[in-house]
């Protein structure tokens, strides 16, 4: 029986230098975030529409995760993404996931689970900025037969799960974190989520289970941009007070400025230094569910899931977007004049990003 149903990328390239391109300067969250916004704007224009506000809100969160929070090995996947190789099935040994872009699997390394996969272009742009994808990888974006899909699936670069039905990734990440604990692995599981996913009941089922099973080797970063498809979340279905709700569900919760990399990284770094590395390696016998666990003691702080609510601005770095408010979910150009304005913005990007 194949215990590892899916490959996580070919050994196509050896370890890559952190950033062969595009900039010779050392990678900073600020520079990477600016690069993400520029690339997403470029491909939104090329694609005649796209999820642009998501790049504006999440660029610093994702850059901080990759540069300062997660312990990942170098990419083991090809710089130019492979073509779609068919859906997973027992008759298709060629199916693969895009997890190889986040490095190899290893006991001590972290895992990244990308939940709101309509942010796919943001992740692809980030991987390019980090040198994990080649600069030309987006040539295949949203083209037929490509894995660089508009809404990512598990074969898409940087993706490990098929998470497009929102609110399903956290439970799966919980299962991965539980499995890693059972095997005594020290690496952690990081989940990137959108705030809209907190409208799904499954998300709250998952937090209940994470707390009940004391899964502390999992952390969640939430892009709280307060926007969703129909408009502002406060109009569609409010999730506030989110921090209080999550605390009541047993999570360790931090609310930070989602564009401040210091503030974003601090809770994860504090967790790492607080009890020494490898807080996930709780022996299985201790945490296994006893037949009738009666009022156990409060879980240790490190046995709670960590949540960072990143309060973000969906127009950050692209002021032009504010004219579309409050409908920011998907940018589709209404007039040639509007498209020209965004083209102009891209043309003069250096000016606008060095403000």
């Amino acid at each position, binding site marked *: *029986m*194949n*215990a*590892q*149903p*899916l490959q996580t990328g070919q050994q196509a390239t050896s370890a890559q230098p952190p950033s062969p391109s595009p900039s010779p300067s050392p990678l900073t969250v600020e520079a990477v975030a600016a690069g993400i916004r520029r690339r997403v704007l470029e491909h939104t224009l090329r694609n005649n529409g796209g999820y642009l506000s998501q790049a504006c809100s999440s660029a610093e969160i994702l850059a901080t995760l990759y540069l300062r929070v997660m312990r990942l090995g170098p990419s083991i996947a090809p710089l130019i993404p492979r073509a779609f190789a068919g*859906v*997973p*099935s*027992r008759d298709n040994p060629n*199916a693969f996931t895009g997890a190889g872009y986040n490095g190899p699997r290893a006991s001590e390394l972290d895992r990244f689970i990308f939940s709101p996969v309509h942010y796919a272009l943001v992740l692809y742009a980030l991987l390019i900025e980090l040198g994990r994808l080649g600069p030309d990888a987006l040539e295949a974006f949203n083209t037929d037969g490509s894995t660089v899909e508009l809404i990512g699936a*598990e074969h898409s670069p940087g993706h490990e*799960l*098929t998470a*497009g*039905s929102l609110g*399903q*990734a*956290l*439970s*799966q*990440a*919980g*299962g*991965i*974190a*539980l*499995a*890693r604990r*059972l*095997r005594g692995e020290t690496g952690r599981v990081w989940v990137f989520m959108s705030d809209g996913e907190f409208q799904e*009941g*499954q998300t709250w*089922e*998952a937090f*209940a*289970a994470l707390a*009940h*099973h004391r899964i502390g080797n999992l952390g969640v970063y939430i892009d709280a941009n307060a926007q969703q498809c129909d408009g502002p979340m406060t109009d569609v279905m409010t999730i506030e007070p989110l921090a209080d709700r999550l605390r009541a569900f047993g999570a360790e919760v931090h609310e930070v400025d989602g564009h401040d990399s210091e503030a974003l990284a601090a809770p994860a770094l504090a967790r790492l230094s607080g009890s020494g590395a490898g807080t996930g390696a709780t022996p*299985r*016998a201790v945490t*296994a*569910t*006893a*037949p009738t666990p009666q009022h156990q003691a409060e879980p240790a702080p490190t046995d709670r899931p960590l949540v960072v609510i990143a309060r973000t601005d969906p127009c950050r770095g692209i002021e032009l977007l504010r004219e579309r408010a409050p409908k920011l979910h998907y940018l589709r150009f209404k007039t040639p004049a509007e498209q020209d304005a965004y083209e102009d913005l891209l043309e003069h990007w250096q000016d606008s990003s060095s403000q």
Partner: protein
Amino acid sequence: MIELVTRPHRSNLIRFAAEHPDLLVLGADLTASCEADGFRDQYPERFFSFGMAEQNMLGFAAGLAREGFFPYIHTFSVFITRRPFDQLAMSIAYPNLPVRMIGFLPGITTPGGVTHQAIDDIALLRAVPNMTILEAGDATEVESVLAVAQTIDGPVYVRQLRGEVPRLFPADQPLRLGQARHLGQGTDLAIISAGICTEEAINAVAALRSRGVSVSHLHVSTLKPFDDPQLLEQIAKARHGAISIENHSIIGGLGSAIAEQLAEQGIGKRLIRLGLRDTYAHGASKPYLMREYGLDAAALIRAAETLIGESLQIDDIALAKIAANIRTEAQGETLAKADKTEDL
């Protein structure tokens, strides 16, 4: 005489788990009701409770399976197939993960009423790519279905039986993937049965034979993939046609699967599908519901008469005598009592 086995899944799960250290059991507040309590007590470190939250449980199972564990989900069939259908399809089935979903109380085997009766589970899961569907029809199959499920590289849904389960097939003849059991040869009619309907079919076949009707009887335990050539061969040979009988809606289950195959292969035989006729059921005992909805031996006799075009003069008394010869009256009473006292 037919032996009745008490809680065969309960003991078999413990035995099976001893041979498979990577097997985990996930429960959703129906642990004893799904006969997983023995496993939980024996292997507490391999049992995980998720409460009444099936969507999340299926996601956790997917994550565990991706990491090389074999999660065996234990809950009622309805709570695997209806409530978390999107999670089942996207988190488990799409990535073809080896999650084994052991579903209890299929069809009208529960007096719990419409909320607890999975009458559409086969139809729903037949439409899910990568899914394998197995159904236990007796104690021997209850005891051997896990070993078959474990050989499959992908998700498996099992319609499992609990409580007092008759042993219709010899204990040394386990369930075999994709192979129907050929229980009788004949050229007038072909009867294809599955699950709890097979015992009814055994009784009906005996009654039909007593009137000189030559009946071929096949018991199906692999509902997907559905490609056993025996089925079409036997139906093609049956002069008057075929009858399917299943503990499920006639839409999308065994009868539908047969009808699709007959049409695709151009076999021009009549097929009467017995099962729930596009209706929900309600809370009552299993024997009552089987009679009310036409899932019993009497319904099979009526269908046989329709196909043959004549009355066979088999009344309830004659049928009851035949059934009694096959299973003793005392055992019948035990079963009826068990049905009523079983945990919901």
